[in-house]
């Protein structure tokens, strides 16, 4: 187990964000996420869900408010420091998989281990955990969409991050595949002990979460 007294993995305080030339997207947002907590964020398209994840990941900076991840003030870190924190503590799952086409499945999964200077052994374990043990030497183009997303999940968790960020991970999948991928994600996040923010617009996806929040123009409200 990770921590006896769970301190927040993510803490957002009064966060606001507007894009240049556009109306403000996020206003006065609050969010606290403890270790191992699995939260779903739902909301209409264009409301700012992806923006929220980018702020958490340190890929974008808020106009006001504070973003803390694992105790570090993301907005005040330099790009390199934020990147190193992301490298160590955050895993990503995208809607469009983003698996490197020229690497094998196993090499793709092992990427975060290599980046963190860890042995690649755990990649095999992780691949087996997502049910793709037999396909480690395949190229991504030989896999189906559901399988690709499972590769992405293995890659996101292989280095045991404290936080997993998933942006509409089932958006490109059919309902049956989507539910099996969601179940797998839930299982593996639990097994890793990571906290997770799952962004989705599907109620079905949200059902697997500990807590469901709705992002509206007034902020995050319990759904």
């Amino acid at each position: 187990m990770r921590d006896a007294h769970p301190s927040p993995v993510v803490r957002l305080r009064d966060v606001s964000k507007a894009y240049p030339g556009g109306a403000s997207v996020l206003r006065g947002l609050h969010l606290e996420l403890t270790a191992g907590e699995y939260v779903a964020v739902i909301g209409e398209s264009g409301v700012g869900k992806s923006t929220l994840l980018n702020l958490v990941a340190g890929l974008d900076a808020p106009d006001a408010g504070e973003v803390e991840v694992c105790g570090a003030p993301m907005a005040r870190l330099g790009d390199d420091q934020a990147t190193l924190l992301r490298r160590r503590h955050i895993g990503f799952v995208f809607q469009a998989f983003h698996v490197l086409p020229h690497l094998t499945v196993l090499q793709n999964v092992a990427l975060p281990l290599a980046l963190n200077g860890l042995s690649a052994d755990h990649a095999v374990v992780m691949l087996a955990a997502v049910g793709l043990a037999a396909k480690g030497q395949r190229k991504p183009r030989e896999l189906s969409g559901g399988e690709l997303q499972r590769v992405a999940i293995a890659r996101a968790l292989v280095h045991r991050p404290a936080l997993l960020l998933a942006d509409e991970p089932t958006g490109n999948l059919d309902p049956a595949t989507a539910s099996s991928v969601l179940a797998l994600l839930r299982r593996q996040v639990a097994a890793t002990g990571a906290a997770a923010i799952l962004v989705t617009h599907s109620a079905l996806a949200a059902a697997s979460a500990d807590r469901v929040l709705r992002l509206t123009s007034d902020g995050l409200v319990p759904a």
Partner: protein
Amino acid sequence: MTAARLTAALAWSALRTQPGRSLVAALAIAVGIALGLAIHLINHSAVAEFSRAVASLAGEADLSLRGRMPEDVFAALAGDPDVAVASPQLELRVNLPGRREPLTVLGLDPFRAAALAPQLVGRPVEAPDGGRGPAGGGLALLEPDVVFLSPAALEWLGLAPGDRLPVQVGVATRELRVAGSLPAVGAGRRLGVMDIAGAQWTLDHPGLLTRIDLRLRPGADPAALRARWADRLPAGTRFETPGESGERGANVSRAYRVNLSVLALVALFTGAFLVFSTQVLSLLRRRPQLALLRVLGLTRGGLFALVLAEGAVLGLAGSVAGAAGGIAIAALSLRLLGGDLGGGYFNGIVPALSVSPGAVAGFVALGVAASLAGCLVPAWSAARARPAAALKAGDEETAMARVRSPWTGLACFAAAGALLSAGPVDELPLPGYAAVACLLVGGLALMPWLTARLLTLIPDAWARRPVAGLALTQLREAPGYAGIGLAGVLASFSLMAAMAIMVASFRVSLADWLDHVLPAQLYLRVGGGGETGFLAPADQEAIAATPGVARADFLRSRALSLDPRRPDVLLLARAITRDRPAARLPLVGDPVPVPRDAVPVWVSEAVVDLYGVRAGDAWTLPLGGQGLPVVVAGVWRDYARQHGAVAMAMEDYRRATGDARVNDVAIWLAEGADPGRVQAALRERLGAGEGLSFVEAGELRRISLDIFDRSFAVTYLLEVVAVGVGLAGIAVSFGGQALARLREFGMLRHLGFRRRDVDALLALEGALLSAIGVAAGLGLGWLISQVLIRVINPQSFHWTMDTAVPWPLLLAVSAVLVALATLTSVVAGRRALSVGAVRAVKEDW
């Protein structure tokens, strides 16, 4: 919207979304077309002017007898019943004191010439003082020291009718009176005309004719006349029709011209290649989009047409710009360099630019064709792709699988080998040039395979760091993609390396040759290039007896016509001993023993190639009225006379011709003698002024190498252009790849790659790839240089050379290329990533 309009619209938008790459590809085509057209126009203008000059000399003659001959031939021919008019001529290149270039002077009989070539009859100008001045009356035509100059000659010499023209005869200076002009002689031709008797007398060539023009009686058969006179003519003369003379003019510079044109074609080839790699990369990037079009209902033919249309637009834009540039370059070069681009083939001719619309249209069509050729393979493979597979990321390498096989490349190499075993075609090394093209194409085709092979050779242990490991893995897995990007470097760098090796080899061999042919300390030359400067026997004795002169070797050189369709060869008579010819001549191969009673001659490599004689052969030289039987005793290397030279011992020459004059002297100084003093003493003894030119061996060597460097300046320029185009090619191809990999970089940033990690990844890839490209380019360049040195040069210019590789230059250029490519790769990646990691992952694959 019709299908054609849709195709055009799609092609246009594809080109516009990658303006940099489209621009470079079009530019490369433009460079090739500009150079090719410029060289064509310059040569066309020069040859046209030359032919005009030949035609104006011949006038309306049916037949001419050419060659050095005594006057009595004229009397005999004029008496032939078939001959209506016979006009004798003496053509001499007259040395002008203080000028390097001689002036061609025609001696003719004005009354006979008036019937055949009226434009060559001078028009006297009344003397300003009204009296019997230097140019008085019609009788001026016959005065022995009167000359009429063409407008171009007047302008060149800065003279006007009434002025005096100093000319060199022997070592003395004589003055001719300029009595008027030759208004009907073409504007580009420098020419003087004198009365023939006056020319023979004043220019000291008594009794000599070089040409007799004939007008035949109506109904007479020229062939019959030729046959009748065939064995009654002196050795070294023969009949020619005006057409045959013109042909020789065009032949003079043919190899040089072809050589330059091939250089231009090389630029065009590189251009076609850049279009190819631009299109391949652009199509790879657009594969999913094109697949989508196919899914939406675009036919195979439609897709093929789309890709070709893009190529046609690139080609047309490049060609039109190139044609404009070519005309400008041609106009400028004609004004600055003359019609032979510094090659020295058309002395005395200053051509005006003539642009034929047909040639321009032809070159534009060539540019479009080159561009279309570059598009053909990518278009075909794009049209063939199965849309379902192409929609997926990472499918490009399947498309590349064919490219990764080494067989196409090896087949090209085999074809090159076969071509090299063929001899020249029509005296041009066309198979050699084709072999170079095969080597290039083969090298390019082998690139993906070679890249993959070389990358597997790199030990994994070198790539422990995650960034290095990722770079290596990606390159190994996708060498096709990477190899295409490299092709630009390979094409331009291998050609540059080949040219550099060839030029260095040539220069080193030339320097060795100069050491061999310039053994003395001081050289005395009496009027270079002309025929009227010489040293009489008395002068020679005076030189040998001058204090400070330890030894003097005399050299007689004169033109010898061995074949009417070819330029004259040079006959060199000098102090050669039959036992030790290597002391004076840079022999190649061993000399062969010659019978005691035979006259030995040593021929340059060009004579072997052009006239088919070999060491040991018996041969006849047109010397001394009858032919002189000689034996070829050896072959020597001659970089000075591309049309051939024949060397013989001075005493053999004198015995055969009775000609005791010489042109050049090699002087060994006595111990401690001061070259300046000796020169002054010689000048005083010979009583000669500007006509004598002294030059020390070291200076002659330097001047020769300077001339060499200058004449290769055009080549250096083309090399710089080639490397520049190649670098631009790298820049755009890396730029294109960086754009194509935007989502990859975005994802890596999400995974925790810092900016500098992405930079390092790109730098590593760029350095590895360009190092492979440069190494392969060096290898391919060496192969091509061997074709240039062993096949193309000997076949074009009839000289051989020993290979010398300019390592410092090549390594420096290699290092710069790798460094620039690495930098380019990083800059391209930075620019691509400036859109931000967040947006990058948002896009669909």
